């Protein structure tokens, strides 16, 4: 991160690069006890170009609660670096007061009580208000969507992404890149993309057969804004066919392809680009690494790893912006571009406090229209929760504990596995659990809950494999996401060890016995990337379980012992 002091030094070293963050403007609001929309939107327009960044909305049209992680371990060069700083440490790092709105929006700790005080966050109608306000300041601001937009809710699933397409079209982005969108299947993606009134970008989206750039997704798009020629280069999620079912989009190949990124930067610069923006779904650490290898990018708008950072991170002459997830934040970045150089920037991560920011009436109406056909299904109350239900964290979250319990109970399994995805809003104690809430944390196009026998040895192979996808010291070998969640089994993980040596002390919790490598265990799980997986849909499994419980109480989970963090 850039501390204020470091930042000054960096600016001096770069001699021409000056900047300011709007962060202090709203951290100080804590003392004032009351937030207003004007305060959240306050921004002294700067330079000649404005970028608006939203990413990883995961189809959350309505306000939600979203607890940031308390465990987010960095490895290799990123050990102890943002975004791998959480809770009180995060607040100390950025000078955030405990109990302040920034505490609630940006960090974990006291979540349930702060959630009651500050209310829900997000809602695309509130996002629309913020976008419109920025456009009132700077009518030609560029709105860029980092992807993971057409996935993650009941309505999105049932309309195959159409609700989000309609809502975003009304928000009028200038460009977008992709990840979960591809899990709609390549035919549906093509159908939507061909009708999009904005650019669908991805320099790393290739034709799988010919290993050539895919025609449907141009690598970049030029915009002329404020008299400045801006090139926006798209970077889709690099590991789509690995982290998600490749059989759903077999025509496409991805990868980081940083050599092609450099070629594209050189190409747009040669064509007169004065400012180069990379709209990325790489994940923060991958973007940081890419920024150190590829030269000539002014701004990387990061996505995928769902980090929300109140200040840009500087790598060389490139600034990295992290805008959170689930509609919780909008980033505004103003740039001063002179003679093809970024001379300075001003940035603000705007938290969407949904009780403070007025909904935009047109967007609110559209959202209601999209939801109307499904209203009864969405609002049906399935149960209640006594516990905070959240997902984010490297090893477990209470939502996943509940899902794993549902799998073991409904599918009569010894062990349950739940994918370490980072989407899915939170619920606070006392909340009803509606069908919509369950879908918000389970909805996907490959959600069947399998039941299978696996040897102890194979379970270890899976854990080792996933652990290396998160804790490989080289970010280029990481896929983002968190550790696969395990129910019914405890284990010890040593982060610093190489693949094959991280996992030990695997224990079957119901008997307390060590897992036998040669023995078969019944494992229930969901979100298999393999074609032909059979079983009931995960949301039905979870709904049945919650219905039986009535009121959910999730016990603290200490079954994973973490060392080397």
């Amino acid at each position, binding site marked *: 991160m850039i501390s204020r002091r470091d930042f000054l030094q960096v600016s001096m070293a770069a001699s021409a690069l000056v900047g300011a963050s709007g962060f202090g403007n709203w951290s100080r609001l804590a003392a004032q006890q009351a937030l207003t929309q004007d305060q959240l939107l306050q921004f002294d327009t700067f330079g000649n170009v404005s970028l608006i960044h939203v990413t990883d909305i995961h189809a959350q049209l309505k306000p939600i609660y979203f607890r940031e992680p308390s465990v987010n371990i960095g490895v290799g060069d990123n050990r102890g670096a943002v975004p791998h700083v959480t809770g009180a440490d995060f607040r100390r790092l950025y000078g955030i007061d405990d109990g302040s709105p920034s505490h609630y929006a940006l960090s974990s700790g006291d979540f349930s009580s702060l959630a009651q005080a500050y209310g829900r966050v997000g809602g695309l109608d509130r996002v629309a208000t913020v976008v419109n306000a920025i456009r009132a300041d700077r009518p030609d601001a560029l709105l860029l969507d980092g992807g993971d937009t057409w996935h993650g809710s009941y309505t999105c699933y049932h309309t195959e992404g159409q609700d989000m397409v309609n809502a975003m079209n009304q928000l009028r982005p200038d460009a977008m890149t992709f990840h979960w969108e591809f899990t709609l299947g390549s035919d549906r993606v093509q159908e939507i993309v061909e009708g999009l009134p904005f650019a669908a970008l991805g320099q790393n989206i290739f034709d799988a057969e010919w290993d050539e750039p895919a025609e449907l997704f141009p690598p970049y798009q030029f915009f002329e804004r404020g008299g400045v020629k801006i090139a926006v280069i798209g970077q889709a999620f690099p*590991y789509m066919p690995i982290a998600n079912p490749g059989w759903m989009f077999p025509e496409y190949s991805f990868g980081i392809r940083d050599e092609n990124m450099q070629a594209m930067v050189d190409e747009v610069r040669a064509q007169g680009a004065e400012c180069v923006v990379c709209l990325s779904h790489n994940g923060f650490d991958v973007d940081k690494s890419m920024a150190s290898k590829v030269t000539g990018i002014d701004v990387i708008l990061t996505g995928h790893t769902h980090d929300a950072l109140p200040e840009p991170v500087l790598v060389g002459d490139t600034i990295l912006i992290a805008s959170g997830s689930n509609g919780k934040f909008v980033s505004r970045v103003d740039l001063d571009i002179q003679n093809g150089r970024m001379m300075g920037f001003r940035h603000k991560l705007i938290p969407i406090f949904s009780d403070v920011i007025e909904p935009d009436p047109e967007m609110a109406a559209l959202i209601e229209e999209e939801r109307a056909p499904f209203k009864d299904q969405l609002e049906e109350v399935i149960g209640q929760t006594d516990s905070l239900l959240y997902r984010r964290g490297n090893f477990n979250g209470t939502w996943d504990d509940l899902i794993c319990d549902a799998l073991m109970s409904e599918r009569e399994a010894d062990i349950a596995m739940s994918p370490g995805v980072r989407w899915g809003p939170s619920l606070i104690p006392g909340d009803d659990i509606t069908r919509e809430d369950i879908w918000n944390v389970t909805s996907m196009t490959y959600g069947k809950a399998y039941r299978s026998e696996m040897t102890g040895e194979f379970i270890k192979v899976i854990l080792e494999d996933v652990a290396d996808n998160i804790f490989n010291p080289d970010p280029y070998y990481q896929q983002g996401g968190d550790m696969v969640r395990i129910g019914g089994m405890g284990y010890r993980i040593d982060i610093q060890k190489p693949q094959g040596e991280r996992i030990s002390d695997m224990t079957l919790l119901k008997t307390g016995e060590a897992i036998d490598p040669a023995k078969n265990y019944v494992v229930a799980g969901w979100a298999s990337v393999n074609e032909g997986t*059979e079983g009931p849909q995960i949301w039905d499994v979870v709904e049945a379980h919650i219905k039986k419980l009535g009121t959910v109480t999730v016990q603290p989970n200490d079954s994973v012992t973490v060392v080397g963090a």
Partner: protein
Amino acid sequence: MEFTRRETLALGGAAALTFVLPFRANAAVDDAIAEFTGGADLADSGVELTAPEIAENGNTVPIEVSAPGASAIIVLAAGNPTPGVATFNFGPLAASQSASTRMRLAGTQDVIAIAKLADGSFARSAKTVKVTIGGCGG
């Protein structure tokens, strides 16, 4: 439903992954390099190897090698039971000394390219390609 053993294996993606990871280079690699270079020293620059960091499909991993002025480039998969993948020979009339192919990788391992350059010296480049079960992207 119950899963059959075959389906269980399919769940894991690559059944080959049940072996110890990562795959280590074996003696056959050293032999192949020695045969190609005659034991000459290997420079770190002069040959470029482009390969994915993580394979989308371990059964068909696209790679590209390029070495301006080279007369031959050998490609080895250090962790495969048979490490030899290809030897590309370039005649004096070759317009460029680059080639691309696809290979099968038994697991996470280093892919190695060694080029015989115009002056008769040798250059080496290597890249780790990960073969993974995957399935947990955020």
